[in-house]
């Protein structure tokens, strides 16, 4: 099972993350942790014409959480805020293209939780 989990796409994004870093100033910034394993993710976003103009993530954690953040950056680049709000967990999991066991779901979905919490404003972070 886990052999599949660590397929090239995950390792590639983990080793060569897209949009890694921080943006200052940013229109939206949010960070959160996965208390179970201490994964940390922060996402900064700049918006132009209601579209994501620039985004960056930082933090540390397991390959799954970090690769998923990198993949999410690719997915949302240039998208409208409404489109980003409409991204579901299933959408992100599909992009990861690897089977995620229940124990690792929180790792895989942390980045989406952070991005949405940032865009919606703090307080709407938990939807599970």
């Amino acid at each position, binding site marked *: *099972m*886990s*052999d599949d*989990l*660590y397929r090239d796409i995950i*390792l590639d994004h983990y*080793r060569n993350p897209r949009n890694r870093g921080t943006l200052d100033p940013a229109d939206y910034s949010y960070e959160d942790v996965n208390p*179970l*394993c*201490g994964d940390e993710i922060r996402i900064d976003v700049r918006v132009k014409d209601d579209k994501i103009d620039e985004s960056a993530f930082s933090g*540390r*954690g*397991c*390959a*799954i959480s970090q690769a998923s953040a990198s993949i999410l950056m690719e997915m949302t680049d240039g998208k409208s805020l409404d489109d980003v709000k409409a991204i579901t967990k299933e959408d992100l999991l599909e992009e990861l293209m690897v089977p995620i*066991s229940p124990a*690792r779901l929180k*790792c895989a979905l942390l980045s989406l939780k952070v991005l949405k919490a940032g865009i919606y404003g703090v307080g709407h972070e938990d939807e599970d």
Partner: protein
Amino acid sequence: MTATTQPSTIDGLAIRKDFPIFQQAPTEGRLPLVFLDSAASSQRPAVVIDAVSDFYARTNANIHRGVYQLSEQATLRYEEARHIAAQFINAANPRECIFVRNTTEAINLVASSWGRTNLNPGDRILLSVMEHHSNIVPWQMIAEERGATIDYIPLTGDQRLDLEAFDALLKNEPKLVAVTHVSNATGTINPIAEIVRKAHAAGALVLVDAAQSVPHMPVDVQALDVDFMAFSGHKMLGPMGSGILYGKREILEAMPPYMGGGSMIRKVTLEKTTFADLPARFEAGTPAVADQIGLGAAMQYLSGMGMENVRQHEIELLDYALEQLPGVPGLTAFGPEDVNERAGVISFTLGDIHAHDVSSILDSENIAVRAGHHCAQPLMHDLGVTATTRASFYVYNTKDDVDRLIAGLHKANKIFGLS
């Protein structure tokens, strides 16, 4: 390095026959299970499972209530388990063994009951940096309520208690020292007898978190002279929901109840209640009768092997593992190197691979280890890591298990391109 005792007579492979979980065929396509997470919760032998089901099948009734035969039998077996527990830790009197659900409940009981009556503004409590959260959080809660202050014994570079700092902190005259016997995250065995002697000389009581010691080595509460000791049944082959708070009789007798309700009273009127004697005073409501009986069976099973033997078996595995592990590129192991100062626990990091990734890859080889902060975040902070991978041993483990672990770690390195 090995302790100079006889070789262990325990054959892990033979012992597995007593454990139904190891008789189960692995899920299709998976290798046989290597279970290296007993520090989180052990497996249970058939004698324990049977003791629980036998209680329900043959002597089930509420205890201390009915005057009919079944209830009397149930009560008898429950109290028998208490006697077994008292013998197991050499308590002077079975009344000093309070049945609780787990270590966490035992510590909360002391923090609430003893803490509320004995801690006053300005008083101090002394803990250590290596404590499990369950020996930190209850004290923080009661300290805040009572206006008391907590000090922490720092650690040495190899994750042992800094005893010089301990001596200095005792000058603050803490009312209580609460420390773990064995660290669940590094395996460090603390010198409890020495700690107790010094703490008593400074006028402090001592609570020992024995969650990781009582299951793995002989522990004698009278020889150690501890005032309180807490441990869980589920980490020592017993049922989940079983556990013991040991306390010296005169100390427990001076403490008010922790919870109010049935079974813990002598007389209730609408105005006032007088409380029952030990141990009933601290066992309000219907307890986990079957589970505590199961814990008694687990203790008898362990005593049959001999706790000296259990400890020696784990020293042999530890010796072997500590010899082999440095051969894995990128591996850093924490904790004391001397196996005499360490229980069967090995916590490590593997290069820059996150502990959860390591354990997912080990899981693909059907090797169960623990990854994370091990409910000891202050200790992780001290180590400068957010998480480690932890392998822990028990009676049913073998050197083959260690070999499988090491092969799994090589595989993790390969997947992450480290070797």
